[in-house]
């Protein structure tokens, strides 16, 4: 108990002292997670929308496949991407291994199914009358799709937030594909794992607190936005 309180107090002091190492780790984490969430959203939102909106053969199977991918362990994704980008493999010449780009690729694979499935759920919940109303008022397919997207925006924002929360908290992909290089690919979670191994809890606890505060802040902004628009 004493260890926890001592670590906690020292961690708080470390955060408020704006320690350069802490700041560097947080910046790398935010950058990598932000980019992977952005790319996953750019692909996952239209994909989820199309699956929810269109009727086609094999739709159910596709949704089952996406749902299955939700439970993919990060180490499996790490291993899979590694087999493509390691020095001797197909994309080895691109020199991606142990770079932030490698982490981004792995994280996109991790959260693309999350964004897609949550978008499917958000779009499917939208009342059919919105589509019918937009159409009868003369909207074309694109305009009708925009109406549905707009009505589902909170579910869609929630999908993006969930994706960001998943990537910023993952450790397997960052460790396997990033290599935990100080100042380059060391993220909050890989740094925490390393500090734990070393038996140095102060930095690990400080990063843990920052992770929790980040997650809380994003959710707070989302709920504030939801409240302001009155729904």
């Amino acid at each position, binding site marked *: 108990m004493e260890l926890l309180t001592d670590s906690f107090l020292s961690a708080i002091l470390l955060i408020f002292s704006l320690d350069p190492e802490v700041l560097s780790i947080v910046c790398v984490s935010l950058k990598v997670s932000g980019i992977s969430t952005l790319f996953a959203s750019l692909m996952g939102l239209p994909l989820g929308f199309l699956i929810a909106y269109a009727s086609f053969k094999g739709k159910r199977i596709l949704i089952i496949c996406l749902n299955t991918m939700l439970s993919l362990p990060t180490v499996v994704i790490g291993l899979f991407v590694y087999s493509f980008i390691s020095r001797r493999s197909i994309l080895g010449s691109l020199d991606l291994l142990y770079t932030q780009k490698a982490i981004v690729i792995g994280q996109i694979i991790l959260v693309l199914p999350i964004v897609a499935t949550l978008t499917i759920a958000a779009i499917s919940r939208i*009342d059919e*009358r*919105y589509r*019918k*109303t*937009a*159409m*009868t*008022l*003369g*909207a*074309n*397919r694109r*305009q009708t799709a925009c*109406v549905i997207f*707009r*009505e589902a925006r909170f579910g869609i924002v929630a999908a993006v937030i969930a994706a960001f929360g998943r990537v910023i908290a993952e450790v397997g992909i960052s460790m396997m594909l990033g290599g935990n290089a100080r100042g380059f690919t060391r993220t909050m979670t890989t740094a925490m794992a390393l500090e734990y191994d070393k038996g140095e809890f102060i930095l690990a606890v400080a990063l843990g607190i920052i992770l929790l505060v980040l997650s809380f802040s994003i959710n707070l902004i989302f709920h504030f936005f939801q409240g302001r*628009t*009155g*729904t």
Partner: protein
Amino acid sequence: MLYVLSKISRKYGSRTVLDIPLMEIEKGKIYALLGPNGAGKTTLLNILGFLEAPTAGDVFYHSTRVSFFESYLQNLRREVVMIDQHPILFTGTVYKNVEFGLKIRGISQKKRGIIIEETLDLVGMSNFIQAQAHRLSGGETQRVALARALAVSPEVLLCDEPSSNLDVENQAAIINTLKQINEQRKITIMFTTHYIYQISSLAHHTFFLDQGKLTTAQAERFKLRQ
């Protein structure tokens, strides 16, 4: 004739919900569509509103056969607007809702503003122009939905039970507006209803639909009762 429906049928699986050998609708008239629940009234309105294709048969609109292809239907839908039994308003203000159809038709902002004010005034909702749509009551929602439809100056207005679940005051407001727009703008109106008095006070013609078929005997009986 504005519409001619020839040998129209609509099936859902093996169940036939609509089977009409011939139906003619004249321009500028008000038609009432009567029938019990599940008679096929909404399906018929969906077909007339080009929102649903019949399984078989032909629909002629302005003497031209309608091809139920998405690219072709979009232009027709800009002339025919349907108001749902329980209309839904888009998230945002009443202004934004009425503006929707005008905006997608490329009408200028200045002109949009004038039309929106006029139509909201017509349905007695001008005081609610900046109100959030989701805060409106059932009657107010119905009136805004009517304004949203009228703003785009349709040639045909299809109303699925326009005054169901409304209080007497809102019912009267809706009925008066429908009468007024038919007289002034010569908009063809077809509405479904369960209220006999609405038919006698509003409709020029009445169709009776039972189990997907137009029933003349019922209609005759209804006329005699009137």
